[in-house]
């Protein structure tokens, strides 16, 4: 049961049941859809930039606990950060969930348990890939399947 408790930590279940920054920004600079149709995870990420900084970010959608909590915690973590810092955070987060890097700081560390569940990496990283695409100015739907 240890692995399961590592995966479904309190903070993850909390953000799944009460997602933060949930909704769509009124006049976003970027809005990109992420969709993993095989498992049925689907979300929108909308971003408002101020220069090179992520001024505001929201997500809306439905999915499994891992994908929703990841989107919720990510939006909390990246708000107010410069673009370059986001790239760095994403890289470290990705290394952590795929088991190739150390645990990261803060609430994002809750996803360290994902590395024991390789099929769930795509759930944890969907929101991140979608936001990255939005920051890169892409408009096509993103999938991590």
């Amino acid at each position: 049961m240890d692995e399961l408790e590592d995966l479904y930590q309190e903070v993850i279940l909390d953000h799944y049941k009460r997602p933060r920054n949930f909704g769509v920004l009124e006049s976003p600079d970027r809005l990109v859809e992420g969709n993993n149709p095989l498992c049925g995870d689907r979300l929108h990420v909308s971003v408002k930039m101020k220069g090179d900084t992520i001024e505001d970010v929201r997500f809306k959608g439905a999915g499994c606990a891992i994908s929703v909590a990841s989107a919720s915690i990510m939006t909390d973590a990246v708000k107010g950060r410069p673009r370059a810092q986001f790239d760095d955070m994403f890289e470290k987060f990705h290394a952590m969930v795929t088991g190739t890097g150390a645990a990261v700081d803060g609430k994002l560390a809750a996803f360290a348990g994902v590395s024991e569940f390789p099929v769930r990496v795509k759930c944890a990283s969907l929101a991140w890939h979608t936001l990255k695409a939005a920051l890169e100015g892409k408009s096509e739907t993103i999938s991590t399947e």
Partner: protein
Amino acid sequence: MTTLATGYDVKAVRADFPILGTRVRGKPLVYLDNAATTQKPRAVLDSLTRYYETLNSNIHRGVHWLSELATKEYELARSKAARFLNAADAREIVFTRGTTESINLVAQTYGRRHVGAGDEVLITAMEHHSNIVPWQMLCDEKGAKLKVAAMSDAGELLAGEFEKQLSPRTKIAAVTHLSNALGTINPVKRLCALARAKGVPVLVDGAQAAPRMRLDVRDLGCEWYAFSGHKIYGPTGIGVLWGRLATLEAMPPYQGGGEMILSVTFEKTTYNKTPHKFEAGTPDIAGAIGLGAALDYLTALGIDAAAAHEHDLLEYATRAVSAVPGVRLIGTAKEKAGALSFVMEGVHPHDIGTILDQEGVAIRTGHHCAQPVMDRFGLPATARASFAIYNTREEIDTLVAALHRVKEVFA
């Protein structure tokens, strides 16, 4: 282990399937993903080994001893498939890679010849992607229209809907015998009669029905019947398309190559006879022989006894799973077999799947290759437990206990 009043010895059946002894993270494997693929009995595994150890050679062209033996075994498998479906003639059995290829074969041969601009192909709202996409591709190519017979909230075809959708422009109808996502049994015999009255040939997707129901293609009144080897305890990569002999003979060939020809010059090729004209290239000889062994196994066990056993499991599971608080069944047709789809309030199916897997319970979560079915019910996905001849009531108890564990985690 539960032994039913019918004398069905599930313990003996389980002993025939080596993989069922597997332990998952220290717990016994509870394999409830049988609608995706079934496990293989020792008799099938042995037939594959025996083929490669004692018979391996190419068929239908060698004059040597081994080739003759392999050809005989391959054609014997064809006869077994014909008997299993109560077909009139073994030449009505075409070996394919599976149900998907069987359907594509009909769409690309009969379909391309008979469906034109403005014509219609009729399917139902509960089809698997493999009985949607080949027809969509055909319709796109020909400028034809794909019509869909709607279903109720219970997952049953609406009364009169199929008949209503049959029009003078309908050139083919394609229906599933048993829905993989909902477990609904369609009244295929009646649908075929309705279609035939309007001169419309019907293809039946039997991927889920073949392992679970006694079949008689002549009684059903369809034109084609398709099923897969790997869902009926046989190997992957082999399947069957049954078609009425006259219909198959009138159809153009599918793929071109060896085996499907009688003679080839650069000017002209004369095609082989049915069914060989549909079997271009060296087929999956071992797979066909393995499928024959699987059909022998199921026939010896008794398809009616197997169906009764699975019916008992489905009834038992329906009661037990729907009693778990927050669980809602998806697909509540009166006539059901094989699969139990459900959702749990506040928990995504993918999370259910992960937690069940920790308990050794293998189920399917997702859209089950039937996205239009999910859309119909307004769901992104469901969890699905599906049953086979070797499952037990105790395994369903394990499933239910694991579902309670899901409730705990998400409490």
